[in-house]
């Protein structure tokens, strides 16, 4: 039989009700009762395959969310557990992976761009346009001033050493590739990731 995980939960929920009630001798009344048993929350949830964000064991996980992904319905992640099909973790998770829901919903998740002006005592919320316009301006001004097109020997070197970047280590490979393209096309050489720490 080929059942997916959610189907399996539905099946066992129904099976439990049916056999339990049947065994107690409720007969037809049992069926009526069974149909009124509240479905497990997960049975109505949307299941999404993902991998743990923390370490490079990369355990498979199943994320359960409410909301059917219609344009106007906002999904809310309600549960995360190990993926039993995954050949490495086979459904298990460590104390970090088991608590992934808490990092998704951490109170210190950032929700708006914030800016702190020189010498200011606090952050203030700003628009994305303000933040990205200002960043691009600062980068360009510095690059125009400090870019090294040729070295002393006259060799074309096209490098920029006065602005640097640290790339992530839990971001996707697709993010990484785009980041590489942007950083290097600017001539950035002070460029690194977290491989060393």
């Amino acid at each position, binding site marked *: 039989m080929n059942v997916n995980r959610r189907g399996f939960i539905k099946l066992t929920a129904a099976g439990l009700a049916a056999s339990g009630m049947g065994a107690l001798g409720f007969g037809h009344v049992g069926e009526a009762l069974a149909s009124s048993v509240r479905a497990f929350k997960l049975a109505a949830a949307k299941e*999404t*395959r993902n991998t*743990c964000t*923390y*370490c*490079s*064991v990369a355990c498979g996980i199943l994320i359960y969310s409410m909301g059917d992904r219609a344009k106007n319905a906002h999904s809310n*992640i309600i549960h995360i557990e190990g993926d039993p099909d995954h*050949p490495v973790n086979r459904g298990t*998770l*460590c104390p*970090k992976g088991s*608590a992934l829901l808490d*990092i998704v919903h*951490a109170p*210190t998740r*950032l*929700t708006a*761009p*914030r*800016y*702190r002006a020189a010498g*200011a005592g606090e952050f203030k919320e700003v628009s994305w346009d303000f*933040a990205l316009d*200002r*960043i*691009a301006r600062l980068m*360009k001004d*510095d690059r*125009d001033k400090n870019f090294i097109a040729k070295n002393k020997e006259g060799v*074309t*070197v*096209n490098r920029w050493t*006065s*602005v*640097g970047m*640290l*790339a*992530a*280590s*839990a*971001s*996707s*490979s*697709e*993010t*990484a*590739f*785009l980041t590489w393209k*942007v950083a290097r*096309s*600017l*001539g950035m050489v*002070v460029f*690194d*990731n*977290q*491989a*060393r*720490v």
Partner: protein
Amino acid sequence: MTNTWQDIKNANVVIVMGGNAAEAHPCGFKWVIEAKIENGAKLVVVDPRFTRTASVADLYAPIRPGTDIAFLSGLIRYLLEKDKIQHDYVRAFTNAGLIAKEEFGFQDGLFTGYNEETHSYDKSSWDYELDDQGFAKVDDTWQHPRCVINLLRKHVDRYTPEMVSRITGTPQDKFLQVCELLATTSEPDKALTSLFALGWTQHSIGAQNIRTMAMVQLLLGNIGVAGGGMNALRGHSNIQGLTDIGLLSNQMPGYMTLPSDKEATFNDYMKTRQFTPLRPGQISYWQNYRKFFVSFQKSIYGKAASAENNWAYDWLPKLDLPMYDIIRAFEMMNKGEINGYICQGFNPLQAFPDRGKIRRGLRKLKFLVTMDPLDTETSRFWEDFGPQNPSDAAAIQTEVFQLPTNCFAEENGSLVNSARWLQWHWKAAEPPGQARSDIWIMAGIFRRLKELYQKEGGAFSDALMNLSWNYADPASPDPEELAKEMNGRTLADITDPTTGAATLKAGQLLDSFAQLKDDGTTVSGCWIFTGCFTEKGNQMARRETTDPRDQGIAPGWAWAWPANRRILYNRASADLAGKAWNPKKPIIEWNGERWVGIDVPDMPPTAAPSAGVGPFIMNAEGLGRLFARATMAEGPFPEHYEPLESPAENVLHPKVRSNPAARVFADDRESFGAASDFPYVATTYRLTEHFHYWTKHALINAILQPEEFVEIGEELAKEKGIAQADWVKVSSKRGDVVCKAYVTKRIKPLMVDGKPTHVIGCPIHWGFTGQARKGYGANTLTPSVGDANTQTPEFKAFLVNVAKSNGPEV
């Protein structure tokens, strides 16, 4: 990892040294338990602390932090002396018989060619003697005094069990028990696997730690076989991927490297990269470098890269220094040479050594940009958080942008795990509030810069203007588009050489990097990933769990680079006739016509064993290297050097105490402490309940390990009058951490050269944002010096003092 996580179950002996997998990689570590239960494997742990991994070990040996090379060199000496090596393997698959140059030598701690002023080597003597045809000379009888195996024998001769114990503090009997157990895997059908992580990399001699173990594995015949290999467990979920794609200061995607100032022309550049074979009939796969490079340049610059402009070679930045790594970046920042810094999902204020120096550097920036799902310490370095982050905000002129990004659950994309598997993941929900993807932010910055350059002109912008950007929504490229870009396409029909029929039409996605060309008719953003997203669809999303013979390969689950090969160097799993060394666990075998088996052969499929093609196809000689030639900064053989901060002299060569090729900045040297002031050896590590500095933002993890502490052995605690859960002040020359003491039986003093030496353990996970209690961060204490090859900071061995305290002054 050369092998897979599940393959660990095939091992006969597992050594965990330079890591603590039970604690740091728990769900992968269960395969060690599987090996113990199902395969009768023995687990050996060598570690300064009696770790969670040690608690399930069959044999545990303590060791002083930073002395692994002495231990492993003693092991090599033992294997050679007792003749416990896999002879046929070593003779056929390693460079044991190759003859080194006559000028090569080693004396008083230094190899030939050392320059005292530059702290570096002229490595010209670290190579083979060549014959008239340019091939390395070889003596398969191992009689020649300068053949590698004899030079190695001589080199390790000083590492007697007495000497090993004197340096490492490991009791001799424990050391010999480890040697004896590991030596059993020199049998052709027995395998040892080595599992390691930051415990080996984070030393000033980190890369050589790993090399020494790789040499052990070559001598024992354990590379390429089931249950064997060198398995770097790695750290963050996609650190393998970011390394593969070349987000390191001197790297390009697929382990190509940026040019240096010395390589003024494209031809200069190719000369040092397209290695020609050093032995007859070898593959020397980097001969194809030009194909990978041209296809890459075509991928990122499209039509603007052509044969006429040398594929836009000049548009790549050239390096005037070996590396602009992070230690150098913060040195430059402190000197006012860096004005802006962008931290994408990276929290250097907690993650990099000498926190005081990091903070002083950040203060000098004109602007700082952070992109993160969480409120990181780095983004708030300018704010006063009390003793854990004292600051006078008004005096700091840095403009700071804190940009909110999505987390893993809110995006599609792939990550590369430590076994090189590219696994696709799917988005489950929208990010909170206005948080956006890193892709959207990078695209936003790029598009604005391009517009500014269009409008205003300015410094050289050809590379920026011509960067390929063929995305359906230029403001928000789709992860699938990017994955296909890395995979690559053909720009012209590819035809089958025998039938002449087109196998791929122009514009179609490539199946393999073997299809790449150097004439501009193929494009690929990362050649080692070619095959991950083909005309058959997204291979990274595959979920086929079938595992032939249940041997831990699962070839249909996701996709592994290179070419979906799960075990690297798997040609070495078979003997000279092509039959498996271990008939119970074959990987690939020669069937008379081709290599067949449960994995993709790491060998041309029709190269008969009699052709003598070596299994290490990336090396120009096709052989595993017991002698590293000029690839390492501090020597072609590993040598024991003390950590930059050490309580002991180097008893082998007192004049050359620590790594002679280490790069140490003058102000950092000033900040190294002496044992007279800081008498205890400290080491940093991770706890299973936490991941770096993120999980303190998650409530459950913050409850499980709520506050900063250090581990102190009972003996030292008694000497210092420190009781369980007392406040203590731990100090290095660079700063103090005030935290709780955890007095433990897990760390015992070691006898090093006749002196008792205490070790203090410093878990790293706290800071001043998140839900756990405020902490300083262990990097307050650590020295700013890195491995001479990789600049990985020396977090695992440094000096501190400890005293009872009244708690943080508020």
